[in-house]
C-alpha cells in the first residue's frame, strides 16, 4: 500500500480510528538458506519466440543491513532491485520467502474522510505515543501431532511479545504446553525453531512516498523446512510402493534412509505421537487422509513421531492512542517453496476464499473478459506442468475400482456411460467430449496407460500443453468462446450445487440445472439442448473421474476437480453473452465501439 504525500498540516489533523496490517495474510515459504529470497513479481512475457505467458521478474527488494557499521545492533532496510532472482544460494540451499507486514492506521480527517496513513515513529509521536509503546505479540504453532493424538502436550507453540523499537531478531522457539506429569512432545530445553520475526529501525533521510522506509514493518522468516523427531526416528526402510499403497510388514525390500538430521532428534520418545497409528482400534479419525505422516505406509502404520518446523501464526500489534487501545492482526503460513514460481494455480487459495465469501462476480463487459482470460492463462500454467498421462491412468483405474469393473483394461466396461470412465475416456468413442485429443493422438487406442516408449513422450500431456497454450492468448480465446459456446459448456465440469440446489435425497431427482441462457441478450432464442446439471457430491456418477475439464485432477477430499462455483458461473454467463450479444463479441474481438 502506498500513501499519497500530504502536507504537514493535513497530516497533523484527524483522529486515529484503527490500525491494520498489510497484507492481512501472507504465505512464507521454507528454505535453509540464511539469505531470504529476492522479491519478484509476475509479468507478462510477450516474446514472440516463447509465446505469451507469465514470467517472474525481479522486484524492489527490502534488504536488511546493520545500522551500525560494525554490524552490531539493530537492522534497517534499503530498497534494491536485483538483476536476477536466484532461488537457491551458492551452497544449493533454498532461499526462504520471508514476508513483510506493514503497519497502517486509519485516520479520519476533519472532513470526515477516512484514509490510511503509514504508522511511523513520527506518526505515533504526533498522536502522543511512540515506538516504545507499540507492542507486537506473535503466536506461532505447529499442531500437526496434536491433531492426530488429540493431546495438547503434542502441540508446539511459540509466543513472543516485544516492542516495536526492539529491533532484535525474535526467535519463535516452540514448546509443548503440558501439565505436571504430562510428557511434552517438545521439551522446554530443546525447543522447536519455527523461524523468527523482526522489526527494523527507520532508514535515515527523508522518507520516500513510494517506499516509506520509516514505516513500521514486521518480517516473518520461516523455519528451514526441516524434520524433527525423537531419537528413535533415525533411519528406516522406505516403502517401495506408489503413494497411497501400503506395504505389508515385510520391510527388507525398500531402500534405507535417514529421516532426520541427528541434531534434530530432540522430541520426546514418551509422547504417544511416536507409535501412533491411524488404523488403531479401526475407528475413523480426523484429519483425513488419515495416513498423512511418516511411518503410515508400512503396516501397522506406526508414526515415527516426526513433525516439521512449519507453522501458522497470528501477529498482533497493539498501541494506545488517545486513551483507546488499538489493535491490528495478520496471519502468516509457513509452507513449502513455490517450485514453479511463474505458474499460477487456476484454483488458488484466493479463489477458494472468494468462492466461500463473496457474492457472484458481476458480469461486466469492462472486466469479465479480462477475468476469464486470466483464468484460462492460469489453466494453461497449471496444465503445462501436469503429467496428464499419469493422471488419466490413475483416475481411470480408480473409476474401475469404484464401479466394480472386472477388468479395468476392458475398453467396454463403461459402455453406455457418458462421459466415458474407462480406457475409452478421451478417445474418439468419448464423444461429444473428446474431440481434439483423438485428432492429435491417432495411434493411441482405448488403453489406460498410453502406448508410449522412449520416443513417444507423454501423448496426452503433449496435447494438453499444446491446446492450452493457445487459450492463453486473448484473440484465440475470445474467438473460441464465441464460436463454440456449447462445446465449452459441455467440456467444463460443473461444480457441485449449493445445498439448496441438491435434491433432498440423491438419485431421486437430479440437482438443479445450470441456467444456460440466463444472461442471453434480449430476444435470443437458444438452440435446444439437454440441461447441464450441477453435480451432487453424494452420487457415484458425479464423483467419478472423466475427461471434462480439468481432466482427471483431484479436488478437496479426493473427488474430481472443478473450477470454483464463482469462476464457473462467470464463465457460463460470459458464454451466454458471447453467444447471444453481438456487442459483447465485438468487444471481445477488439472492434471499434461504433461498429458494435
Amino acid at each position: 500500500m502506498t500513501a499519497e504525500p500530504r502536507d504537514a498540516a493535513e497530516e497533523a489533523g484527524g483522529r486515529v480510528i484503527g490500525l491494520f496490517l498489510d497484507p492481512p495474510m501472507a504465505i512464507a515459504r521454507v528454505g535453509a538458506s540464511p539469505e531470504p529470497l529476492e522479491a519478484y513479481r509476475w509479468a507478462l512475457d510477450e516474446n514472440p519466440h516463447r509465446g505469451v505467458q507469465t514470467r517472474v521478474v525481479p522486484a524492489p527488494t527490502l534488504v536488511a543491513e546493520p545500522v551500525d557499521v560494525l554490524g552490531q545492533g539493530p537492522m534497517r532496510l534499503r530498497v534494491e532491485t536485483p538483476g536476477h532472482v536466484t532461488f537457491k544460494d551458492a551452497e544449493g540451499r533454498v532461499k526462504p520467502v520471508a514476508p513483510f507486514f506493514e503497519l497502517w492506521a486509519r485516520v479520519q480527517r476533519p472532513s470526515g474522510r477516512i484514509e490510511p496513513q503509514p504508522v511511523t515513529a513520527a506518526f505515533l509521536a504526533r498522536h502522543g505515543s511512540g515506538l516504545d509503546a507499540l507492542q507486537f505479540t506473535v503466536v506461532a504453532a505447529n499442531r500437526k501431532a496434536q491433531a492426530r493424538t488429540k493431546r495438547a502436550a503434542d502441540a508446539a507453540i511459540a509466543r513472543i511479545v516485544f516492542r516495536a523499537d526492539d529491533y532484535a531478531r525474535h526467535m519463535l522457539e516452540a514448546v509443548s504446553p503440558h501439565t505436571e506429569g504430562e510428557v511434552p512432545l517438545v521439551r522446554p530445553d530443546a525447543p522447536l525453531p519455527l523461524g523468527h520475526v523482526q522489526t527494523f529501525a527507520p532508514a535515515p533521510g527523508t522518507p520516500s512516498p513510494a517506499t516509506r522506509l520509516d514505516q513500521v514493518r514486521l518480517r516473518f522468516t520461516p523455519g528451514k523446512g526441516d524434520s524433527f523427531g525423537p531419537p528413535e526416528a533415525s533411519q528406516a526402510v522406505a516403502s517401495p510402493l506408489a503413494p497411497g499403497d501400503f506395504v505389508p510388514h515385510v520391510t527388507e525390500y525398500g531402500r534405507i534412509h535417514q529421516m532426520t538430521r541427528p541434531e534434530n532428534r530432540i522430541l520426546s520418545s514418551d509422547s504417544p505421537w511416536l507409535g501412533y497409528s491411524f488404523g488403531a482400534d479401526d475407528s475413523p479419525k480426523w484429519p483425513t487422509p488419515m495416513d498423512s505422516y511418516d511411518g503410515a505406509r508400512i503396516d501397522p502404520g506406526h508414526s515415527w513421531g516426526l513433525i516439521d518446523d512449519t507453522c501458522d501464526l497470528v501477529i498482533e500489534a497493539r498501541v494506545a492512542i488517545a486513551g483507546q487501545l488499538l489493535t491490528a492482526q495478520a496471519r502468516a503460513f509457513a509452507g513449502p517453496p513455490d517450485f514453479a514460481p511463474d505458474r499460477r494455480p487456476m484454483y488458488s487459495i484466493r479463489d477458494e476464499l472468494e468462492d466461500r465469501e463473496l457474492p457472484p462476480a458481476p458480469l461486466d463487459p469492462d472486466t469479465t473478459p479480462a477475468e476469464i482470460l486470466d483464468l484460462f492463462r492460469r489453466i494453461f500454467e497449471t496444465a503445462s506442468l501436469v503429467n496428464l498421462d499419469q493422471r488419466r491412468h490413475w483416475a481411470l483405474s480408480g473409476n474401475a475400482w469404484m464401479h466394480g469393473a472386472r477388468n479395468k483394461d476392458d475398453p467396454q466396461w463403461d459402455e453406455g456411460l457418458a462421459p466415458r470412465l474407462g480406457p475409452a475416456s478421451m478417445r474418439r468413442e468419448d464423444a461429444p467430449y473428446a474431440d481434439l485429443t483423438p485428432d492429435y493422438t491417432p495411434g493411441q487406442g482405448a488403453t489406460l496407460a498410453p502406448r508410449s516408449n522412449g520416443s513417444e513422450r507423454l501423448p496426452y500431456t503433449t496435447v494438453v500443453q499444446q491446446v492450452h497454450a493457445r487459450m492463453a492468448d486473448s484473440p484465440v480465446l475470445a474467438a473460441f468462446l464465441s464460436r463454440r459456446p456449447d462445446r465449452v459448456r459441455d467440456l467444463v465440469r460443473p461444480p457441485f450445487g449449493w445445498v439448496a440446489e441438491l435434491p433432498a435425497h440423491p438419485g431421486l431427482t437430479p440437482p438443479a440445472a445450470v441456467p444456460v441462457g440466463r444472461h442471453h441478450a434480449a430476444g435470443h432464442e437458444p438452440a435446444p439442448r439437454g440441461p447441464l446439471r450441477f453435480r451432487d457430491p453424494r452420487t457415484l456418477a458425479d464423483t467419478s473421474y472423466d475427461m471434462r475439464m480439468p481432466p482427471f485432477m483431484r479436488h478437496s477430499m479426493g473427488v474430481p476437480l472443478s473450477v470454483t462455483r464463482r469462476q464457473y458461473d462467470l464463465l457460463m454467463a460470459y458464454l451466454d453473452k458471447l453467444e447471444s450479444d453481438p456487442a459483447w463479441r465485438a468487444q471481445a474481438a477488439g472492434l471499434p465501439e461504433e461498429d458494435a
Partner: protein
Amino acid sequence: MTDTPDRLVRPLNRAARPPAPDSPAYPEPVLGNSAATLMDSGVGNCFPGLEFDLRQLDVRFFPGLVFAFPGVTPAGPDGTQGAQLVYADTTGDPDFDLPYDWVGELARSLGGPAGDALAEGQWYLHAVEQKDRRIELYDRVVLQNAIHLIPYEGEIAWWIIRLIERDPDPALADLVIELTRRDANGQPAGQPVRLRGKRRAYLDGEGMISQVYRPGELTASMCSPWTHDFRDCACQYWASNHPDVVLGEVIDPNDRGRAQAGQADPAEEDDPLQPVSFLDWMRRRTDPARDVQAQTTIDGARPYRYDPYEINLVWQELDFVLQGQEANATPAPDLPEPPDAPPTAQEVHADLRDNLGPLEYILALRYLYATFSIRAPEEIDAATEAAWPGLSDDLRAARQILLSVAISEMTHLRWVNQMLWSLSAALPAELPAYRPVVGPGLPAPDPDPEHALRLDRATPEVIAEFVALERPGGDIDTEYAELVAHLRDNPAYPPGLFQLAVRIDADGLAHYNKFRDIERILAPYAARPGIYLRDLAEAAADDPAAAPALALLREALAALREGARAEAAAARSNADRALAEARIIAARDRMHELWEAGEALARRGKGIPFFAPLPETAHG
C-alpha cells in the same frame, strides 16, 4: 476495496493497473514481498493442502460449534463416521459479539438446554436446512422392509457443509442444523438438537481469516512432516507449485537472453539431436536414471522418485522451474530485437493474404502427406518387429508428432484469417474487405521453395527440409517476428491481436523441435527408409480412387471458407455466429473423413494429390 454488504473484504493484494481485455492485471504484493506470498500463489483445492488446509475453516462453520470429519478406516464404516461434534463453546468466538437477533438466540440456546444436551455423549451433525431444502447426512437403505440410515463418511459430510451458502445479509439467519446422537449401529437416536444460525464469515473485515481460528489450527491437519505429502500424496493437484513434469532442455537458437544467463547454449547447426523430453520433477537427482523420460503411470515412475524419509533431508535438491524448464535463477532480460523498417498496413495485409496464409495451407498439406507416407504400427509384421525392436512404437510416435504439426498449421491458417479480418475491420478505409484465404494462393510462375506445391514422402532428406523450414531465425520465424512488432506497435489495431502472431511464431519453435525429434526417432532407419516408409506415390489428379478424398477436401475447404466469412461477420450478427459454428464443425467432420480416406488410400500405395486443381481454392 471490495465492499460486500456484511463486511469489508480487503483485497489480499492490489492490482497494479486496471485490467484490459488483452492483458489482465497481475496482483501486486506490498513492497518487498514476492508474488509467492500472495494467496494467489497457493493451491486452493486441498487434501490437505500445501500452505494451509482450507478444510479447517469448515470445522467451525457454525458459530459456537467445532466439528471433525472422520472418514472410514480400511476396516469399513463403524457408524462413527461423518461430521462429529467435537465440542460446543461460545467462549472466544467473535461471532457472538455480533449485534443480531439470531446471535443472541443462538447464544441463549447454547448456554441453555441445547448446550447442556450437547455436553453429554457424542453428537453428530444430522441435517442441514437452507432455503427450504433439508439434506440429511445419511444414505437411506431399505433392509427387510425397514429404513436403515448409513452415515455419510467425512468426505461427503464435509462437502455438504462446504456447499452451504452464506447470505450477504448478516442479520439473516438462514441456516438450521440438526444434531443427534447415534446408537451402536450408527442409527440416529434420542431427541435431536436444532440450532438456527448462519454459516460463519471466514474472513474478517480486514481480509484475515477470523480470529476464532487459533494459531496452528489451519495447518494442524496437514502432513507431518510436510515433505511426506510433497512426495507421498497421490493427489498431484498442485502442479503449479509442485510440477509433475518439466521439459528437458529445449533448443531455441533465438533465446539469447537465456543463453546469456548460462542456462542453455544456442543451437548450432551441428547440434546433436536432442529429444524434447518430459522429465519427472520428483526424480532422484542422484540416480543414474535421473534423465530418463517421465513415465506414463505412477507405478512406473515410483522407482525413479525420491523415497519417503529420504525426501526429508534432500528436498532442497528439487529444482525450481521457470517456463517449464528447470532453472534456479531468472534469465537475463531479453536483448532488444534488431529494429527493422516498419512495414505499412497494406504490406502486412498483403503478406498475410498472399504469402503467409497460402504458406500455412501448403505446409499443412505437405506435412499431412508426409504423415500418410509413414507406415502405421499395425502394418509391421512380427518378423520385422523382431528384426527392428521398437519399430512400431517409433512409427506411432513419428506419425503422431508429424500429424500434430500438420493440424497446428491448419490452426495457423485459421489465425492468419482472423488477423486478416481483424485488420480489415480496424482499417476499413485503407485495406480491402476481408476475403477468406483457404488455399495455396494464386499460381506463381516461379514460386519460392517454401511455396512449392510439392508432396513428398517423409524421407530423411524431406524431414531435414522440414527442420530447416521451421528453424528459428529462418524466413518464416523472421516474418512472424516482424508481424508481431507491427501489430503490437500500431494503436489502430485491436489490442492483443499481435498475440496471434506471437502464438504462431512460438509454435514454430515447437514445430522445429518436433521435427528434430522425428529426425532422431527415425535416424536408426535412415539407411533403409523402406523400413518405415510406405511405398507411396502421388495419385494422378484424375485417378478415380482419389476422387472421393478430393471431394472431401473440397467440401472441407468450402466449409472453412464459409465458416471464416461468417466468423468475420459474427461480431455483428447472431446468425453469422451460429453459421460460423456450424460450418467449422462441418469442416472438422470432413477433415476427419479425409484422414480416414487418406489412410485407406495410402495403404494401397496412393497419396492424395492435395494440390491437384480444385475449384475455388484460390482466395475463395
